């Protein structure tokens, strides 16, 4: 019940923003093209944010997703080029895509192993990884991007007029909701984040589950990365700078707590869309990208403080004293 009410707040603000923009810019905002455009742009961040939701519920954090985004793209594109020559086509694109996602899995695995086996804090490990992965992405081609002119399907293709990237985003969202609600991995994610010691004493294999969680976000970053490469038909070693912060913001706006044990996929999706529509709206209203940062910063703090307030109110009602 209270969970539902809390989620209503970000959702309400999302609806409010859409209403306001529809009223002010009906001709440019309220078009199918614009909506699809916003969703397409959301898909990259949204897919990563879904993985970040798992990580944050487990009381962890992954700061390396932006660098991973660049590294996966560069690796995937490099494989395409190596297999398909100057203008890769067909199978080489498929293999490159798989390779890019595979690199994400490996990166996530490394993060997970370091965090669990060396008992290091996720913040520290992924802070190091952020620099490390970015470094590799930059060194690969000496800071130059790799262009893959015909790699368009993920970014621009569509099935029955719905863009492929949005379909992927939707499928991943549904899968993540299912995992988090109906599978042991999801349940254990909450348990580990809420009280790691209690989960351990109840027989949960904490290390294995945490490694799975970091690999899961790795897979998602890999997928998001290939969508990103496809949208720009090139892999940029500087892609995804600052992405980690946008993604964490989306998750937190969606009601997750950095202390762990709390958060939902639906909340995260709402948080992602909130930020995307806000950006889009600002652009349509002629607010510069620089000024947009101010608006988004304010929204994050307001959203989280209202959430906190609602939470402490709920607590007081719940506690019966003893």
């Amino acid at each position: 019940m209270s969970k539902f009410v809390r989620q209503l707040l970000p959702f309400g603000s999302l609806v409010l923003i859409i209403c306001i923009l529809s009223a002010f810019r009906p001709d440019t905002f309220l078009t199918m093209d614009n909506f699809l455009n916003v969703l397409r742009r959301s898909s990259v961040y949204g897919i990563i944010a879904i993985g970040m939701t798992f990580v944050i519920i487990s009381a962890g954090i992954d700061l390396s997703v932006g660098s991973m985004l660049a590294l996966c793209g560069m690796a995937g594109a490099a494989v395409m080029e190596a297999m398909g020559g100057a203008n890769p086509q067909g199978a080489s694109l498929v293999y490159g895509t798989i390779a890019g996602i595979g690199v994400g899995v490996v990166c996530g695995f490394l993060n997970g192993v370091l965090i669990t086996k060396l008992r290091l804090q996720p913040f520290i490990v992924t802070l190091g990884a952020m620099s490390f992965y970015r470094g590799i992405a930059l060194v690969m081609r000496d800071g130059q991007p790799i262009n893959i002119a015909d790699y368009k399907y993920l970014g621009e293709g569509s099935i029955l007029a719905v863009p492929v990237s949005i379909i992927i985003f939707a499928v991943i969202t549904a899968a993540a909701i299912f995992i988090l609600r109906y599978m042991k991995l999801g349940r254990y994610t909450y348990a580990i984040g809420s009280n790691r010691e209690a989960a351990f004493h109840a027989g949960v294999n904490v290390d294995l589950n945490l490694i799975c969680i970091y690999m899961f976000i790795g897979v998602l970053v890999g997928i998001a990365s290939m969508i990103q490469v496809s949208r720009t038909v090139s892999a940029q070693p500087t892609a995804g700078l600052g992405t980690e912060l946008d993604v964490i913001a989306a998750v937190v706006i969606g009601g997750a707590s950095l202390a762990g044990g709390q958060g939902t996929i639906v909340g995260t999706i709402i948080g992602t869309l909130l930020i995307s529509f806000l950006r889009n709206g600002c652009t349509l209203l002629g607010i510069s990208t620089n000024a947009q940062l101010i608006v988004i910063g304010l929204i994050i703090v307001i959203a989280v403080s209202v959430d906190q307030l609602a939470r402490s109110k709920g607590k007081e009602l719940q506690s019966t004293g003893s």
Partner: protein
Amino acid sequence: MIETAQEKEGEGRIGLRMEGISKRFGPVQALQDVNLTVHEGTVHALVGENGAGKSTLMKILAGVYGADRGRIEIDGKVRSFTGPEKAIEAGVSMIYQDPDLAEHLTVAENVFLGNEPRGALPFMIDNNVMVNNTAELAENFHFDIEPGAVVAELSTGDCQVAEILKALARKASIIVMDEPTSSLSESEVERLFEIVRRLRSNGISVIYISHRLEEIVGLADEVTVLRDGQVVHSEPMSKLDIATIVRHMVGRELTEFFPARDVRIGETRVKIEGLNSGAKIRDVSFEVGAGEIVGMAGLVGAGRTEVARAIFGIDKKATGKVSLDGKAVTIKSPGEGIANGIAFLTEDRKRTGLCLNLACSWNITLAGLDLIGMSRTISPAKENGIAEKLGRQLAIKWAGADAPAESLSGGNQQKLVIARWLLTESRFMIFDEPTRGIDVGAKKEVYGLLNKLAKEGKAILFISSELGELLGVTDRILVMRRGKLVGNLKTSETSQEEIMHLAAVEEANE
């Protein structure tokens, strides 16, 4: 019958008077017209079952909550607290169950936290003054503590002394102690009592909350009993005994506190041979039969919990042989322990037991998802049904199986952990201090449950620091001292004295 201790001839001045205090949380009336009178320089025990309103009353006194109605007088002056700082100013200091200190600072720094003596330059702290004042304060009260010691390295008992010093430095005239002995060793408990008496002789009033009624008998001058948010009795200790207090607490006679042991002990279910773990446990061997309840006594730090941890696969360095129903098993993790039919209810339900912000049902099924056929997908409806059923079976009081675990009282939280391990259908169950911090009624239920589980043929190891309950519930008692098993006694043929002697006294040749 409601009566309040009135000023007696020569009883001294009234230090604190709380009158007509009422407090409501949502639909729950936590306190109803509560009166509490504490005389200066006395120890006033506040007792009651969990949920009776003791903590709420004290939180109102400490300015954490505001009362809906009622007034508070300290030294004859009416006070209204808008926050904890105001209460501290008025001379009220709370000492909570868990020490409330900054771990990485020294004792002196904690004592003067927020109240540091100013140094020669602005924004500087005069460390010498701070350390000297702390040392002086400690000496005045004959406390044995090093002002320069870092809190993280102190024992729980020393942390409490530091807390008390902090209260004294703030010129507290009323000190509230909430379950101060729940995590202390026997010798530390003795020291605490000594300190409490010293505070009393210095004119400080101590309000003492405890579930251990034996403590209150020797310590308190007056006793106030709360039940369901109301004062049901208040009288000098000299006119009371434990049985009367318990009767007032639960509102009925608690007959046959311990269940009758009428279980036939079957074949050996559990055989532990040569269990070792560094210096913590050395060569521990014992057996537990089907239907047998074996107690484990010992002082804090004797290695009792470590034995359980070694058996359950938590302690990776432990060596030794564990056999269940005649078959040797190797257990390397709690998961394997559960798979082999072992349950381990840890002593600290907040730290190692419950995921407090998650639903009760989730907490109940956490260890048993595989065993209820949910290893692939979880069916929330079915899961809820299982939790509700266990909740009814154990008479857990909750708003519903989907309420967060933190919304339950201590005793009900303990039942939640028990429910988890009932679900796993284990053959060997280890209970580590299952009655710590829960009220008399809930304790009785736990004893009954242990008995029932034994009747089902389970082997039970019951670790406890309360000798009374060990003697009341078990068939046999193992005694640990410094990591070694020093006694294996038939409960019917032993006594508190014998156990205490074994647990505490070093033999000459050791």
